[in-house]
């Protein structure tokens, strides 16, 4: 399990290659990367604030839950903070499992939980001003599908 929270840009391709090399014996690997949308050219930049300390703890707890629930061989979460430009990679998750269903489910679980349970806040900057991104009810609702 690896959790990286840092301002630095990273290459999802390189990260996936390293993750795959580590996940020896896993039959399935799923990865997801999230990018900054430019919202039709309106967005000039995005700033991501986080809560140092709590962020790492929350992400580790989420990853641990996924590893246990789907018997993942490994899980990776990388999330940037600071200033990002449209088109830049914000974050990625990757999961390794024996079979694809577990790898997909684990990755979706990681995404759903880190969207509304990890302390990150996005602020969008446009030519006409800046605005904090509002949380969506749909993101909160998405968590209920993992109740059991």
């Amino acid at each position: 399990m690896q959790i990286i929270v840092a301002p630095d840009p990273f290459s999802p391709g390189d990260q996936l290659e390293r993750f795959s090399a580590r996940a020896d014996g896993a039959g399935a690997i799923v990865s997801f990367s999230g990018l900054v949308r430019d919202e039709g050219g309106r967005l000039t930049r995005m700033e991501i604030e986080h809560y140092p300390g709590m962020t790492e703890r929350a992400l580790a707890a989420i990853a641990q839950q996924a590893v246990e629930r789907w018997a993942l061989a490994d899980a990776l979460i990388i999330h940037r903070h600071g200033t990002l430009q449209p088109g830049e990679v914000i974050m990625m998750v990757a999961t390794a499992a024996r079979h694809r269903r577990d790898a997909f489910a684990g990755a979706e679980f990681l995404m759903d939980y880190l969207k509304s349970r990890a302390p990150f806040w996005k602020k969008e900057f446009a030519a006409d001003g800046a605005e904090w991104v509002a949380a969506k009810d749909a993101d909160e609702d998405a968590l209920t599908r993992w109740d059991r």
Partner: protein
Amino acid sequence: MKITVMYFAWVRERIGVPRDVIETAAATVADLVAELRAREERYAAAFADLSALRVALDQELADFDAPLAGVREVAFFPPMTGG
């Protein structure tokens, strides 16, 4: 007891500082919020609508009726928007 109160995102902007270290006898988060609201208008504005806020106690999400005994760090912030 002395606790560190941290603010993030628009809560931080509205209050104007990222954190306060305060001496308080508040028994619960709600009591602490009442104390903060009474401080100054900018605090009252930030804490006007608790349904728009989340709270963490020592870096774990908690409820507004949670007790503060033994807690060293309280953080207030809007719903999270990671990913």
